């Protein structure tokens, strides 16, 4: 790599000798941004900010504005004001929020510009023309922030409003619990100090007045879920909770009316309060992970450029394309549609679909698919398929078929509830019958005892056992850049015995690197030529050579190579055929892989060999997974030679090459029919069905959108160690969940006999319930304590989300 001279004054990245704006800036974009801030008198930004190394550097990208149609998702209200929601990428700290808002508010047409720092979203309102938006946001883009419009209605609205409802219920329950407890403590104290019956009854009536409406409102999330479960003839944890709360309140009301001493209003309402805390935190943690995942995905969304018959260009969303449209795809851009090349010749990187690590040359007539990347030259593509006919929707169908198995998975909490509820209800019935028929007391008193059993066994601790652990585990993983999207993902992860890896982009970085030690002069010269090209092999040459200056007079022939005039004729850098090297040329190299040749008339040709390099920690991760006894498989769509080579290097005995998406999913299906639970780790579109079919699945944040949607867990950063981290946390969490269940059962073993024998008073119920909940929460917190220890795989991966996790 290039030696850093100093940090860029705008983005803080190292400045290299190659930079056109050296020595102060890394690129002309940064120099422009610095100058613009100077003009606007906002240079104080540089003093105020704190660069977060985990966030993408603030380097302006030249072609960014051209790629997105901002007017499409903007809405206009009755007053003629326009509103737009945007995702912001590149926020390092609060100073960035300040800078973005200030830059936007400098524009007189802007009514409102407000950045939400937690969700990294910007809400913008402006007057005037809809099309002004490009001018309004240009200064922000020039700073290096990336802005992507999104439709708030399409995004996690359900989760957000559910969480708000939970928070409202929590507030009401908290208010009621506090006040009822205040009155209850007085009543308990009254037992010993001789409170009069009239005062006690007054306190009970006031408690009822507070607790009944509050429980009716704050309990709604539980009642709804319980009713839903019973309708489907299932039992979940909410059924015994709802039953316990309602019975406790009903019995207390009856006691109050009869002027008797025992009322359980406080138990019922504090139970709801504790449970709502668990529910809310659980919902919030999952919402955070999901919104982070959505943020990543939205940043990859792109419009496509349609060329009209009269030659004008416009941007539309890929969903709006119809067959027959001509779409222009610039070099370096992602192809947004399935189609046929009508004009142009270029290399297309298809690794995301096929797993093939070398770009494929496409000429007019070739078929291209959405999701692939056009590398070397612009292409005009005629749209041939849309909607249900595209390759992507074919994959989606495969995925949906594969996913059904996973939907049948029942969470551990529901399994426990299924076993627990009938036992408790039978016990309570037995208490009633026992006291009434055998004990010989009146049926009212027998009923009281039976209800006391239900109240005391109401699974407060049991219902907290899972969510509290989940919240802490998800939060800890989120801090390490691992986003747990599915509620049962961690549970399923603990069952995993085999791990199936994809190759390109998962075990490898998906970027070729030069291998071997070629002649230094030749390398420098070749790299000078290669600096003119965007081809991945050219870029690899430049990276390998270090500081190079692009040679002038180099022309690129898409899909073939580069030519520059030399003293004795044209010098070529490219494929074997392009450089006229005989097929049988004897070169001392046993490395299989992509290659480039450098040929000059009269000089022996030089060969550069490349290899798709592994993620830096892949060998360590595979080794430590092997010592933990996981069975590992490598399934790739790439060629046999490259797959074998990687499998041998990493020591994975079981590998298969040239696998189609269907074959990958079928392989996993076969294994799961044999009763094996697999974790699938993959990133390509071709992995999506396999990700959905596997017992659990992980996907890097660089993966195709559909794969990230299919995966349970998305991890950020370059380190494969996330796999180990996730498995470790999942196992630890599982252990804690089981301990929590054991603790709450132990509590029941002590309290149920008390309740059955009729000794439970409101004071005992309140103490037992609160203390068991606190014990369970304290036990779950141990997961957090251990997170300070260094992990087996060393440092945590770099992420941009730790800030959010800390909130």
């Amino acid at each position: 790599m290039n030696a850093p001279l100093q940090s860029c004054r705008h983005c803080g990245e190292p400045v290299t000798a190659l930079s056109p704006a050296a020595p102060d800036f890394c690129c002309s974009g940064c120099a422009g941004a610095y100058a613009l801030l100077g003009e606007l008198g906002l240079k104080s930004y540089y003093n105020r900010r704190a660069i977060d190394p985990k966030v993408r550097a603030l380097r302006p990208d030249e072609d960014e504005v051209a790629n997105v149609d901002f007017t499409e998702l903007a809405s206009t209200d009755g007053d003629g004001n326009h509103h737009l929601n945007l995702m912001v990428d590149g926020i390092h700290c609060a100073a960035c929020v300040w800078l973005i808002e200030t830059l936007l508010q400098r524009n007189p047409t802007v009514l409102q510009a407000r950045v939400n720092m937690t969700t990294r979203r910007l809400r913008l309102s402006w007057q005037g023309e809809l099309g002004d938006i490009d001018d309004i946001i240009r200064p922000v883009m020039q700073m290096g922030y990336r802005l992507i419009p999104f439709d708030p209605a399409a995004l996690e609205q359900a989760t957000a409003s559910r969480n708000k409802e939970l928070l409202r219920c929590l507030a009401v329950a908290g208010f009621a619990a506090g006040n009822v407890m205040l009155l209850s403590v007085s009543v308990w104290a009254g037992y010993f100090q001789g409170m009069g019956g009239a005062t006690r009854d007054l306190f009970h009536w006031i408690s009822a007045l507070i607790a009944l409406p509050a429980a009716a409102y704050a309990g709604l999330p539980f009642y709804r879920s319980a009713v839903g479960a019973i309708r489907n003839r299932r039992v979940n944890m909410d059924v015994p909770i709802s039953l316990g709360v309602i019975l406790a309140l009903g019995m207390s009301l009856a006691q109050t009316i009869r002027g008797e001493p025992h009322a359980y209003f406080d138990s019922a309402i504090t139970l709801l309060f504790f449970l709502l805390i668990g529910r809310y935190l659980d919902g919030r943690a999952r919402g955070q992970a999901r919104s982070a995942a959505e943020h990543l995905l939205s940043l990859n969304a792109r419009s496509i450029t349609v060329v009209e018959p009269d030659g004008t260009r416009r941007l539309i969303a890929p969903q709006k394309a119809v067959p027959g449209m001509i779409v222009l795809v610039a070099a370096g851009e992602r192809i947004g549609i399935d189609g046929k090349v009508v004009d142009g010749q270029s290399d297309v990187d298809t690794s995301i679909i096929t797993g093939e690590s070398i770009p494929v040359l496409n000429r007019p007539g070739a078929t291209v698919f959405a999701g692939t990347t056009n590398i070397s030259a612009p292409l005009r593509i005629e749209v041939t398929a849309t909607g249900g006919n595209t390759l992507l929707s074919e994959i989606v169908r495969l995925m949906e078929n594969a996913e059904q198995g996973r939907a049948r998975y029942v969470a551990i909490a529901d399994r426990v509830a299924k076993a627990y509820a009938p036992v408790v209800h039978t016990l309570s019935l037995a208490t009633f019958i026992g006291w009434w028929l055998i004990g010989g007391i009146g049926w009212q008193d027998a009923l009281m005892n039976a209800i006391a059993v239900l109240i005391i066994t109401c699974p407060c601790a049991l219902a907290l056992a899972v969510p509290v652990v989940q919240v802490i585990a998800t939060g800890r993983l989120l801090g390490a850049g691992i986003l747990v999207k599915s509620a049962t993902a961690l549970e399923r992860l603990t069952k995993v015995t085999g791990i199936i890896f994809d190759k390109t982009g998962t075990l490898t970085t998906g970027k070729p690197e030069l291998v071997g030690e070629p002649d230094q002069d030749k390398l420098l010269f070749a790299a000078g030529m290669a600096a003119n090209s965007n081809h991945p092999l050219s870029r690899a040459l430049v990276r390998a050579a270090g500081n190079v200056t692009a040679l002038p007079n180099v022309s690129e022939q898409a899909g073939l190579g580069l030519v520059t005039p030399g003293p004795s004729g044209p010098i070529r850098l490219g494929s074997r055929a392009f450089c006229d090297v005989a097929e049988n040329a004897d070169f001392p190299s046993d490395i299989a892989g992509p290659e480039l040749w450098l040929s000059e008339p009269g000089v022996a040709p030089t060969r550069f060999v490349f290899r798709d390099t592994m993620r830096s920690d892949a060998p360590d991760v595979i080794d430590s997974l092997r010592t933990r006894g996981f069975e590992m498989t490598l399934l790739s769509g790439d060629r046999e030679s490259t797959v074998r080579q990687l499998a041998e290097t990493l020591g994975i005995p079981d590998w298969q090459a040239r696998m189609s998406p269907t074959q990958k999913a079928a392989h996993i299906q076969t294994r799961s029919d044999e009763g094996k639970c697999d974790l699938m780790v993959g990133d390509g579109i071709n992995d999506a069905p396999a990700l959905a079919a596997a017992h659990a699945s992980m996907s890097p944040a660089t993966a195709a959108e559909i794969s990230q949607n299919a995966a349970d867990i998305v991890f950020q950063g370059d380190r494969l160690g996330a796999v180990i981290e996730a498995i470790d946390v999942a196992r630890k969490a599982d252990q804690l969940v089981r301990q929590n269940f054991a603790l709450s059962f132990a509590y029941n073993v002590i309290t149920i006999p008390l309740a059955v024998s009729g000794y439970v008073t409101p004071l005992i119920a309140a103490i037992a319930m609160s203390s068991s909940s606190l014990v369970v929460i304290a036990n779950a917190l141990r997961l957090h304590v251990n997170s300070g220890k260094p992990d087996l795989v060393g440092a945590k991966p770099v992420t941009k989300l730790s800030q959010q996790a800390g909130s």
Partner: protein
Amino acid sequence: MSNLLLLIPIALFLGLLGLGAFLWSLRSGQFDDMEGAANRILFDDDDVKPSDKSKKFHQDDS
């Protein structure tokens, strides 16, 4: 007894006031961006003059 009859309603009224304030702040979006709110106070708008309109908009931001 008589002081209880006065004090309990007062206590409940004050509690309800707090609950109402919380629900209002929740509805007006003040809990949407906890991290931003904590940091915003560090930046005084010395070089921006937000118009009255934008101030109005800040409130119904959700």
